[in-house]
């Protein structure tokens, strides 16, 4: 781009608040002069990677976002889908990676607070939280402290606001040593005709600030989250926000009460980039201008500058455009909850953001150019080199009993009970399927139906082959929802990657998006919301590419669900889906051979759809007693999980008992148990779904293979339940 405005010499690259010099030039062009300090701060956060999606936009646009049941796709605070009976489900996932690494408790807590606000801003009552966490190698000196702090933070916030935390996943890998991932998801429910959007309307209408007071916390949080870490990252602690879940709880109740009236024109939470992004986005979407008088902003401390107020990321705040004659209604409701409610400005026809403080104009900038001309990069990318499949025949052979024992107690497969028992997963009283299964199920008061939800990603697959891994992440959520009997409806995605300015990282991003796109299309499973977190790197070391997918599905009849627990001795165990014995990029290969290599299991989307639709049909018809999808660790791990949940055993006679067959991670597979195997197998044949009986459920707490292998279920339980509590109780 060409610079029309002459730059002063005093602004060196270090003074540009994270803007690239070319971006600064563009800002000067838009202003027709050099921006003031406050204006530069506003440009900096609005054009940060975190707020502008400048590296990812081009690719995100290629994702499928539409379906008959999608009411609102990406672009609003959260995605909205139609779930029948005039009800809508509103959900989104969002990262709080950088702050959680710097200050785990507050970083994670405010991550939960932020995503809750994104959802209730749209008029939804939040009914469930989920989270996907990634930590470094358990032996890394920081890992234990991060796990403890993040889990306590998520619990501390979610428990207090009274929204059950019903599901999630946690993994460990050395690539996260310098950058943990905290992805938080909220699912809410609203009436379809009472959804609130953020586009401002009506010049002259008051701009009303509600919630907590503004302080000097989280200033430039969005900019911090758009940069890599180095050895001095902990110096960035002042950019981390501090949460107050009690105020959030009051804010939820007050906003929902106000939403039940007709007072609101538009509403938006103050998240990343606080007052700046909320005011600019609301006015921008409405094609209007906005005048703010910062002297009226409720402040926690005196002497705050315009710059600090516009960039503060103090939590638990919302911006509302009210109908002018309804201010009293709002004031009364917020007074009831003892929350601030202040008119801090009004909408204008100027199309400009004007910020006043102490009678002085500190910023006066055109909104549309700032939003529309925000940088969009077509970053160079390099495709990830394809890996060869692993030849299982050339691997050493291990005793399946020992392998299973090790896998069930390894950091990535061990029980997460230590984590989810710190989360109130029962409040509201509608948790129909608790944590520990394939997907959580949450009932809706007064309705037959229920929502199923889960979060998944397999970063080692994405690292090995971004396109396959991207597709697999989508497919795994679809399979997990299917395994409880739900019809998967839509996803929210959280794209966690390294530095996009490196072509190989951008190649991972592009590949993952391509895979996700294919999977979403094939499964009619669109993306309705999401979030991108880039620059997850420390000293040039990037995380494994981690596209976390949050999936939501519906059960028309909540009583017709399935879970993974083996039920009655004598039930036939049926393996659905084809098994070749794929060990490339498997957990088996990593844990038993210490090798992270080989192509990941291929994803056959037609087989996924066919097998999944078949299994869901069985569940809805009540023809299976239990169901579990097969993923990490393959068939034997899946069976062990079913045995542990049901406190039962199994006598198994699979066609092969080699390690690849028992522990391979071939996709599109489920294990179901049934009283009527004949009927089930006949139906499978008719549906052209591979299925075979591989054993029976037994009352003895033992898994046996027909070739003589015997594995104690209690021994597995000890390994499975033991690892995490033992690890967390150690001192560094």
């Amino acid at each position, binding site marked *: 781009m060409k610079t029309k405005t002459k730059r002063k010499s005093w602004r060196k690259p270090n003074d540009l608040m994270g803007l690239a010099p070319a971006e600064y030039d563009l800002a000067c062009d838009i202003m027709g002069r050099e921006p003031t300090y406050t204006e530069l701060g506003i440009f900096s956060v609005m054009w940060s990677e975190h707020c502008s999606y400048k590296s990812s936009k081009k690719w995100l646009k290629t994702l499928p976002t539409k379906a008959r049941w999608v009411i609102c796709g990406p672009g609003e605070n959260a995605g909205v889908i139609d779930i029948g009976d005039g009800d809508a489900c509103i959900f989104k996932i969002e990262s709080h990676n950088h702050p959680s690494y710097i200050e785990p408790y507050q970083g994670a807590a405010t991550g939960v607070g932020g995503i809750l606000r994104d959802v209730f801003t749209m008029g939804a009552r939040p009914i469930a939280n989920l989270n996907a966490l990634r930590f470094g190698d358990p032996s890394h000196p920081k890992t234990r402290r991060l796990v403890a702090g993040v889990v*306590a933070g998520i619990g501390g916030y979610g*428990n*207090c606001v009274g929204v059950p935390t019903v599901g999630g996943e946690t993994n460990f890998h050395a690539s996260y040593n310098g950058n943990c991932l905290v992805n938080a998801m909220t699912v809410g429910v609203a009436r379809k005709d009472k959804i609130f959007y953020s586009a401002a309307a009506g010049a002259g209408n008051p701009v009303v600030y509600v919630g907590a007071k503004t302080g000097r916390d989280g200033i430039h949080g969005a900019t911090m989250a758009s940069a890599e870490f180095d050895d001095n990252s902990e110096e960035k602690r002042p950019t981390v926000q501090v949460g107050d879940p009690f105020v959030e709880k009051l804010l939820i109740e007050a906003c929902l009460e106000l939403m039940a009236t007709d007072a609101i024109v538009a509403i938006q939470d103050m998240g990343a980039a606080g007052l700046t992004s909320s005011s600019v986005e609301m006015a921008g979407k409405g094609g209007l201008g906005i005048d703010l008088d910062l002297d009226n902003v409720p402040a926690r401390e005196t002497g705050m500058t315009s710059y600090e107020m516009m960039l503060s990321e103090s939590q638990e705040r919302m911006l509302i455009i009210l109908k002018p004659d309804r201010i009293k209604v709002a004031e009364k409701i917020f007074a009831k909850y003892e929350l601030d409610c202040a008119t801090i400005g009004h909408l204008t026809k100027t199309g400009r953001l004007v910020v006043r403080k102490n009678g002085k104009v500190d910023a006066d900038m055109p909104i549309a150019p700032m939003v529309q001309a925000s940088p969009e990069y077509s970053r160079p990318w390099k495709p990830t080199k394809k890996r060869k499949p692993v030849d299982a025949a050339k691997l050493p052979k291990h005793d399946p009993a020992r392998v299973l024992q090790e896998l069930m107690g390894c950091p990535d497969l061990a029980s997460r009970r230590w984590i989810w*028992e710190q989360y*109130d997963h029962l409040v*509201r009283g509608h*948790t129909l399927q608790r944590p520990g*299964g394939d997907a959580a199920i949450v009932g809706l008061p007064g309705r037959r139906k229920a929502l199923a939800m889960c979060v998944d990603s397999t970063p080692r697959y994405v690292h090995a082959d971004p396109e396959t891994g991207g597709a697999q992440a989508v497919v795994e959520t679809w399979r997990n929802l299917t395994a409880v009997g739900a019809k998967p409806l839509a996803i929210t995605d959280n794209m966690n990657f390294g530095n996009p300015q490196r072509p190989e990282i951008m190649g991972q991003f592009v590949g993952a998006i391509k895979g996700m796109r294919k999977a979403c299309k094939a499964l009619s499973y669109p993306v309705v919301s999401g979030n991108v977190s880039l620059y997850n790197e420390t000293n040039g070391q990037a995380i494994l590419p981690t596209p976390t997918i949050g999936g939501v599905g519906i059960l028309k009849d909540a009583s017709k669900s399935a879970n993974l627990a083996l039920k009655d001795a004598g039930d036939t165990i049926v393996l659905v889906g084809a098994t070749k014995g794929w060990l490339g990029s498997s957990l088996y290969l990593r844990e038993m051979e210490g090798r992270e290599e080989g192509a990941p299991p291929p994803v056959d989307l037609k087989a996924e759809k066919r097998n999944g639709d078949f299994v869901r049909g069985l569940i809805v018809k009540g023809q299976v007693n239990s169901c579990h999808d097969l993923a990490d660790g393959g068939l034997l791990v899946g069976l062990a999980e079913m045995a542990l*949940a049901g406190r039962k055993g199994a006598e198994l006679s699979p066609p092969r008992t080699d390690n690849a067959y028992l522990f391979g991670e071939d996709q599109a597979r489920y294990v179901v148990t049934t009283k009527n195997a004949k009927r089930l197998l006949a139906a499978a044949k008719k549906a052209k779904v591979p299925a075979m009986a591989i054993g029976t459920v037994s009352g003895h707490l033992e898994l046996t293979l027909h070739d003589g292998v015997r594995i104690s279920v209690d021994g597995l339980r000890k390994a499975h339940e033991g690892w995490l509590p033992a690890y967390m109780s150690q001192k560094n």
Partner: protein
Amino acid sequence: MKAAIVVFPGSNRENDAADALERASGKRPALVWHKDTELPSKLDLILLPGGFSYGDYLRCGAMAARSPIMREVIARADKGTAVVGVCNGFQILCEAGLLPGVLLSNAGLKFICRDVHLKVANSQTMFTNRYSNGEVIRFPVAHHDGNYFADADTLKRIEDGDQVAFRYCTPEGETVAAGNPNGSIANIAGVFNATKTVMGLMPHPENATDPATAGPLGGSLDGKPMFDAIVDALAK
């Protein structure tokens, strides 16, 4: 039966409790905001629900205990109106002096949400008469500060007066440390006042009343007899 649930800022299980009472009585109880200085007239039952009143920022329940409505709750309790406090409600009743003892941080210093087993210690009350003495039941807990404590004299008075309602126990019914999730003294999970008209407990009977949430992997229905007993006793 006419029941009211007091809602404090930060309460979060008021609807769970209302659902349980409605399931048992067929009638939705009134929700009363804490700033109201009056309770509905002729109440048979006042319930203080679970949650984080005032964010639990001081001692749990300490601020709510001084809320305007509590003067009225205490006055009604003194006249014999039945009062139940669950979780945060139990903490509030202790802080308000309606029940003996106090709730400290869990011995493990962590929030705990899971099912626990309880042994019924006194089934001769309007709240517990559908259970039998020594019966083992299962309710979930969800708290960070459920570690019941009372000094030796108070404890003796509680024990001598049959004021213990429930004790934490193993699935087999042993009231030992292995069955105690939070370090409560004498495994106490819930207590009565001297006249057995006020009961507080940390576990959540209201979350053990819905058939939809019960099952082998889910919760129990063991809270139902408690709500049935209450409705029964107060129906007349």
